[in-house]
């Protein structure tokens, strides 16, 4: 089961990613990206990260991609035009990417310390845990040890909201605040 599910959803991921690259209209790319994110959520489930799978759907696919779609609609971005482009991007970038991928692949495939994932098993829980669900485990660590980063993250999101509002407000642009 594991293998089939993995192959299926990995395939969806790859297909979506490649489609993102091949499409010219940004809305199509956005929709492909949604596909990628959803498949990734399933893969998280396969790996035993239930909370993250849910968070992936809710945050990424449900909020971030919606935001992207809104912006595409707002700016009425049309099909991409063919511009001259950058020679450096193709001549320097592609070999770099190829090299990067090759290295990563080599390292990953040749390293001997990795095992295999067993479907259904979750993370090992300490004996003192109340119940052994993934969510409990996560939240125990999150709200005990990493409480400060958690709170800081909320501040960060607040700042991001303020920043986004300030930047995207009408009248902002050429440096003259209207009111």
């Amino acid at each position: 089961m594991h293998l089939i599910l993995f192959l299926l959803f990995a395939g969806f991921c790859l297909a979506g990613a490649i489609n993102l690259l091949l499409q010219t209209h940004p809305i199509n790319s956005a929709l492909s990206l949604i596909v990628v994110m959803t498949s990734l959520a399933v893969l998280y489930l396969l790996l035993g990260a239930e909370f993250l799978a849910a968070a992936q759907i809710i945050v990424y696919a449900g909020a971030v991609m919606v935001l992207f779609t809104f912006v595409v609609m707002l700016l009425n971005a049309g099909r991409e035009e063919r511009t001259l482009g950058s020679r450096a991007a193709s001549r320097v970038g592609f070999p770099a990417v190829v090299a990067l991928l090759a290295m990563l692949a080599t390292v990953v495939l040749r390293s001997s310390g990795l095992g295999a994932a067993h479907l259904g098993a979750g993370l090992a829980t300490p004996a003192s845990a109340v119940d052994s669900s993934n969510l409990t485990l996560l939240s125990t660590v999150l709200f005990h040890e990493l409480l400060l980063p958690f709170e800081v993250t909320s501040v960060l999101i607040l700042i991001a909201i303020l920043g986004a509002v300030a930047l995207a407000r009408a009248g902002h642009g050429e440096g003259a605040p209207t009111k």
Partner: protein
Amino acid sequence: MTESLHLWLIPILPFAGFLLNGVLGARLPKWLVSAIGLLAPLGSFVLVVNAASAALITAPKTCAECGSAAASVAMPYAETWSRPWINLGTLHVDFSFVIDQLSLVMLLVVTGVGFLIHIYSVGYMGDEEGYARFFSYLNLFLFFMTVLVLAGNVLLMFVGWEGVGLASYLLIGFYFSKTSAANAGKKAFIVNRIGDFGFLIGIFLLLASFGTLDFAQIAARFSASPFHIVIQNGAPSLSHGPALPSTAVITVICLCLLIGAAGKSAQLPLYVWLPDAMEGPTPVSALIHAATMVTAGVYLIARTHALFDHAPVALAIVAFVGAATALFAATIAVAQNDIKRVLAYSTISQLGYMFLACGVAAYAAGIFHLVTHAFFKALLFLAAGSIIHAMGGEQDMRKMGGLRNRLPVTFATMTIAVFTISGFPPLAAFYSKDAILYAAFVHGPAGKLLWFVGLVTALLTAFYMFRLWYMTFLGEPRSKPEHHHSTPLSMLVPMVILAALSVCGGWIGIERFSAFLAPSISAPRARAASTDVQLELVLTLLAVTVALLGWFLAHRLYSSKPERAAQLAAGYPAGYKLVANKFYIDEIYDAIFVKPLMAFSKYILGWVVDTAILGGIAWLLAGIASFTGAILQRWQSGNLRSYAAWLAAGAAAILIFVLLWGSPHGWSLTLLHPQTVYKVTHITTLHLGQAGH
């Protein structure tokens, strides 16, 4: 029993005067500037007199060890600073000041006459701008001159040598806004430099062959016997002393020193700067270019007489150079019309006499003439200054005349000086010049020729000096100056003192003088036990006759029938023109040396080296920089994608580096822990993500 003479104060006082007047002088009131400027040489003079009295006057108390009356200070008396100047391997040079009979005489002349001329300058330069600057330069000169005289080794003397050259340049070009004065200063310094170059080569050779630059040690090398007894382990044995350098080497050293002396003392062929140096104010001409600086060459030769005595060829060359210069300069002086030019050529001629004296190993006679010359030549220049001052700046003798009534004191003193320089007894130069001529005559076959040249020069000297006398003082005034400047007392008093010295300065006689100097200058080798009195009498009479002949000729041409001079000149126009234009030596030098040098400078150094090579290198470097910049500038395209591409390439490169050649902990492809790759990848992601913004 030796008291300290504080020799170091002798140069330091004028140096302090230089600093004070130089730095603060412009802001001080004039009386204070004069006071500082006068106190410094006065202090030096007092110290020198003190040293002289300590050395000469024997103390009444006897010393137990020596058992006889002894002077409180023994000469040579040396003061050395405890810290050495140069201590480099085998080279050891100290700051040492030495007083012996020779330097004592020189110092008395330098500080005494110097002080008198400082007094004169108070009056002469009283209305000039830059009064404080003048006195500071004068004091600077005195500082360097005293260092030169007091120096115990050649290198310290060279410091003083160069320093007086510098002071001379500053003072000649004192009226620096006048182009001719500035050029004269440059010319003096450059020609002196040529001499200094020879001097330096001499110093190097001296060091290489003797291993020391100290005068006393060099002299000791000559007097040390080749064998001496050495006590070794209680038993005496013969030991071979250090061998002297060969005569050829010593000759070369002496010739190099001669070049230096010729430059400083204006002998052939390096005399050309002295007539031009008359552009400076008259006290400068009196002090530097008559009495003290130009005699430094003679002093050098006298100081290093030990070397010259062992190089007869060099000595002969010295004598010939001196004689030739004396005659040559005298012939030029005959046709000059500027009063100071006449005196300048006269100085060159008299310096030739001194060189002649040294060249026939009569060093004492040379120094004697140096002393008397200082008196009468300084007096001549000061009187000329008084005349120029009274004439409102006019220096052309053709416009002077009949000044004897207007300037009585000047007339009286200058008359004494004119008679002195012509060699009339019983005035000072008679004794010294006679001593030189006698010594030349008895020096051997060539000596007779030298004596004859000296005699002819004496004739010419008398002629042109009396010509000057007639044209300036006697006859009818040829021009009336607009203002009537009366000569201040500060100018008259030094002149009177110098006149008195010119009268009685020679009365000590050459016998006693050379006996006095003998410990520092070895007695002339060829001097007979007693001089041939008859020969001396004959030669003396000849010299006086010649002087009278010169006076008579001058009287005939310039006094009784003045137009005869012009007729004579018109009779030999080419000859007259040649002499009046100083034999065109300046023009010849200009054509042979100056113009090619300037052409070389302009074309080869200026165009080829400066513009092409150096400019080319600079242009190349700038070109490389701007070229590289132009290339690198294209990288900053503002294009997001190319930036991202380069980022990715960089990340890939780092990864490759880390994977393959990374840490010494033995990472390799097979053993690599994925955690590292994972970390690097995540860092790369963050960077790329930031780049997207």
